[in-house]
């Protein structure tokens, strides 16, 4: 559909956009929403993707985040048409694409390690999809040039892909996909081969390009920082299932499962059980002794059980000398500093609490507090609303946080 509609959208673009260079806009691009309905993919009797239900809105930057083997890449490959789902349906813009081959889908992909055509130069790489669509020569020339401007690689047409740096290859891969004006762009860990500095630069760049072209981006990564930086919404996947989904802030601040709490950022998790609920406040007895109060709306459905894990992010905790008066509406635990590490942006403390559990605390380096030293008696406290609870995992399950594919 977009192939036919291409010329229309082009003619709507205001004249002279070419001269704007990098800010040139491909106006009024159609973008499509994506829907996975009960999608399961089985490899050798193991479910790589397990009954996935997911909806990505049109124009959204959505990330699938998870450790390697969690099913995120398989989900993306099913959407691209490179794998067939064992069960379920995939809709693109309301149309069932489950059984369409890759070349019949209005979807383009930026592959991990780019997969540029080694026998073609930059121009021919970018023009590949347009040539397959039998678009006129001068039109191809114009669109490739425009797209190379957008990815900030003007005058690179004649270069061979082997002559490009990693960051440049990535831009070519992006241009090669975007030039076809797909309704949806899939990105499979596109930055895993870049160094940290370039990666941060490309994150900003990619977000800018997405805002500019306005199409749906589905981004797969194991890097939580990358996902949180760019996404409008993200889903954390584990063992082929979605463990948590929402805006980066929601998922980070109120994780709903133990896996999300430990995969996305760092969390202190204390095992306990619910003892009483009075209105907006729920009291939880910690296994090592003492109680912690949690807003009732932060308690997930436990299915009748009272066992929970109480969590708090290390940066939400205040660390004070022992004896400091705790303000109302705060949770507090006493302890002794075991390790104190200066990290530049702050201090990281590992505190041996009176509950017998170690708690990690980050304190920002704003220069005016007395940094406790190891051995000091301290009191930790944080506002009740920064406490979350998750359903505990069976003790046999281990969360494997290793990165990379």
């Amino acid at each position, binding site marked *: 559909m977009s192939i036919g509609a291409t010329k229309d959208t082009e003619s709507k673009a205001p004249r002279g956009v070419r001269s704007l260079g990098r800010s040139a806009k491909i106006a009024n691009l159609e973008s499509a929403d994506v829907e996975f309905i009960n999608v399961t993919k089985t490899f050798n009797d193991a479910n790589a993707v397990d009954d996935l239900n997911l909806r990505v809105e049109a124009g959204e930057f959505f990330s699938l985040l998870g450790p390697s083997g969690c099913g995120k890449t398989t989900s993306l490959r099913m959407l*691209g*048409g*490179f794998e067939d789902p064992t069960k379920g349906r995939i809709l693109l813009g309301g149309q069932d694409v489950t059984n369409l*081959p*890759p*070349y019949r889908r209005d*979807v*383009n*992909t930026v*592959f*991990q*390690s780019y*997969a*540029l*055509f*080694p*026998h073609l130069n930059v121009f021919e790489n970018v023009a*590949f*999809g347009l040539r*397959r*669509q039998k678009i006129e020569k001068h039109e191809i020339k114009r669109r490739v040039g425009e797209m190379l401007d957008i990815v900030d690689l003007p005058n690179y047409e004649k270069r061979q892909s082997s002559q490009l740096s990693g960051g440049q290859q990535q831009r070519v891969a992006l241009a*090669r*996909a975007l030039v*076809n004006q797909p309704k949806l762009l899939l990105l499979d860990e596109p930055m895993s081969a870049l160094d940290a500095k370039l990666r941060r630069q490309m994150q900003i760049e990619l977000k800018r390009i997405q805002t500019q072209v306005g199409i749906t981006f589905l981004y797969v990564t194991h890097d939580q920082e990358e996902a949180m930086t760019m996404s409008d919404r993200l889903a954390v996947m584990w063992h082929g299932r979605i463990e948590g989904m929402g805006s980066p802030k929601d998922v980070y601040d109120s994780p709903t499962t133990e896996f999300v709490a430990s995969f996305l950022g760092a969390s202190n998790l204390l095992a306990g059980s619910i003892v009483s609920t009075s209105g907006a406040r729920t009291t939880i007895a910690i296994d090592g002794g003492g109680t912690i109060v949690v807003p009732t709306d932060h308690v997930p459905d436990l299915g009748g059980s009272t066992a929970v894990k109480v969590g708090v992010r290390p940066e939400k905790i205040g660390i004070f000398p022992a004896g400091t008066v705790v303000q109302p509406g705060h949770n507090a635990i006493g302890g002794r500093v075991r390790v104190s590490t200066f990290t530049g942006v702050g201090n990281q403390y590992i505190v041996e609490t009176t509950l017998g559990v170690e708690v990690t605390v980050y304190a920002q380096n704003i220069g005016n507090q007395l940094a406790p030293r190891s051995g000091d008696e301290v009191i930790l406290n944080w506002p009740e609303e920064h406490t979350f609870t998750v359903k505990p995992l069976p003790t046999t399950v281990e969360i494997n946080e290793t990165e990379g594919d």
Partner: protein
Amino acid sequence: MEQLVPPDHPGGVAPRRKRRVGRALAPYLLSLPSGLWLLLLFLVPLLLMLSLSLKTCSPSTGACVMAWHWGEFSSEVSLYHQEFITSLYFAAAATIVDLIISFPIAYWIAFYGGRRKNFFLLMLLVPFFVSFVIRTIVWEFVLANNGVVLGALKHIHLLPQGFHILGTSYAVMAGLAYNYLPFTALPLYVALERIDRRVLEAAYDLYATKRVGFMKVIMPLTVPGIFAAFLLTFIPMFGDYVNQEILGGTSNTMIGTVIQNQFLVTLDYAGGASLSAILLVVALLGIFLYARLLGSRTIEQYL
């Protein structure tokens, strides 16, 4: 305290310098055995052959004297140009047959061989554990007038009784194609195997059908392998004489047969040597052309 002796101390100099000299010589010493091997068994015979082609030999005694007889080359070419053309034709035809047969084989092993790739490659090579000559003689049996193939076909009257293959050009080309098949299949396999599958997926992602993906991605990326396969097969076929001797007749003599006769039957060493030199030049031209067209680095990868 002894470690603090300055480097120019007389006691410290001698062993250190010796070690440095040893280190500088190491690569040369390590390449000495292979260098000697090349010199004695490759370069010397080659130069002997080239000088022999310029000598005149007495047919009765076999003794040769250097005569700088450059005319030998042109007279050999004018005498045997027909055999050169026959060889060229046979080798080219058999190479093309090999390319056509081995491309699907190599393609299938590379793309669909899965975990058994090495097993399939081994199966391809199994017949070649048998000596070249024996294999060709077995082909003689296979193609014999009343052998397994023709005999059976004649028995059920699919072929006339007088039909024969042995002694014809087709027998020679069939033998050549059979004997050199792995030299075509293996470089093709290497080229196909090396294609990044994600690049192919990228092509499908960019609206290429399976057929277009094959034409626009697989074929261009296989070209160096095809050329390498061509060289590796064509050059030895061009000088081959065993297939023609065993499977061919008298009307389709190849240049290899002529050279063999000159050395072993007519004892015309100078003639045989100059024909060999011409063959060598043809082969070098092929390799030179390859290097010019596809770059010398790809030669190292395939040959």
